[in-house]
């Protein structure tokens, strides 16, 4: 519930309606292993031929063949391959201050994964920059067990 004043005369009232759906989902053997790894501060990829996919997939995106559960630890540091800057984070964003959403190719991986980069300023973001994860102390087996990535060799 909030009140907005328009000029000096008209008072507009707003109501807020929230719709909520809680889901509980099974993760399967591949994402389950990936999340178990995060809980244990390890980032796991999966071998697909001579490539390593991170995050791991259940199927080879090139051939559609099921992948064997052949996991390999990657990172934890990596390289930003693309990014955009969020100037006004919403309540739902991973950080409460301006940050970058980036594609990050972790060391040892052949694909990039999306995560937040707490760079402090858009001026510090650039393609090719090196980043390293900031882990949460209390990890639950979720993608945000990594709170965000930060520029390597210096906090934001």
């Amino acid at each position, binding site marked *: *519930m*909030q009140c*907005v004043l328009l000029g000096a005369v008209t008072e*507009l*009232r*707003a*109501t*807020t*309606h*929230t*719709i*909520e*759906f*809680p*889901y*509980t*989902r*099974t*993760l399967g053997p591949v994402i*389950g*292993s990936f*999340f*178990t790894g995060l*809980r244990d501060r390890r980032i796991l990829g999966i071998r697909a031929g001579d490539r390593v996919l991170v995050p791991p997939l259940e199927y080879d995106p090139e051939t559609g063949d099921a992948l064997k559960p052949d996991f390999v630890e990657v990172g934890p540091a990596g390289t930003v391959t693309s990014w955009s800057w969020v100037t006004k984070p919403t309540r*739902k964003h991973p950080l409460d201050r301006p940050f970058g959403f980036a594609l990050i190719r972790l060391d040892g991986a052949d694909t990039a994964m999306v995560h937040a980069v707490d760079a402090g300023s858009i001026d510090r973001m650039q393609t090719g920059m090196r980043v390293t994860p900031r882990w949460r102390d*209390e990890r*639950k*087996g*979720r993608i945000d067990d990594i709170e965000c990535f930060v520029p390597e060799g210096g906090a934001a």
Partner: protein
Amino acid sequence: MTDTAGNATTTSGDEPVTMMEYFMQLEYSDVVSAPVMRFRDALMDARLIAQQCPKCKLVYVPPKGYCPIDTVELDERNEIQLADRGVVTNYTVVTPVQYYGQKETEPFVRASILLDPPGGMLILQDVLDIPVAEVRAGMRVEAVWAPKGERDVDEIGNRSGSALEGSLRGFRPTGEPDMPAEAFSDKVW
């Protein structure tokens, strides 16, 4: 992970992570329309108001500012006072399933109430002071208003429809004789 009561629990120790919780949330913010603001003010006085279309004579409660059938705008000049008593035209007994957000634990009634002239239909109303099994179509009922100091219309917006329980708690039997079905069968909602 989730325990049997549906509470989120932290994955602990060395067990593999097999499940995830995902909480989808959509928030809508609406500026309350002028007719609904007037409707809210009336509810604070324990009154029901509506708009009546001058062409088709349909009664819109809550007032919506237009008649969608005749595509005419409605405003304060089309406003009418409604009765706060009427008849149950039809009803459903809901046996609550304990899904997320469910507050009810026992079977309850949601009834459509055709108000006395000049008319108007309130849907999804609670029927109070009578066992669920004794509710029937044709039963005469009157509004049960929240006490003056307890009325709250802050949550009533353009999408609230007949959900008015902050001010209008529901309806209770008046004890008058039931009305025959023919008296309202053309208005069952």
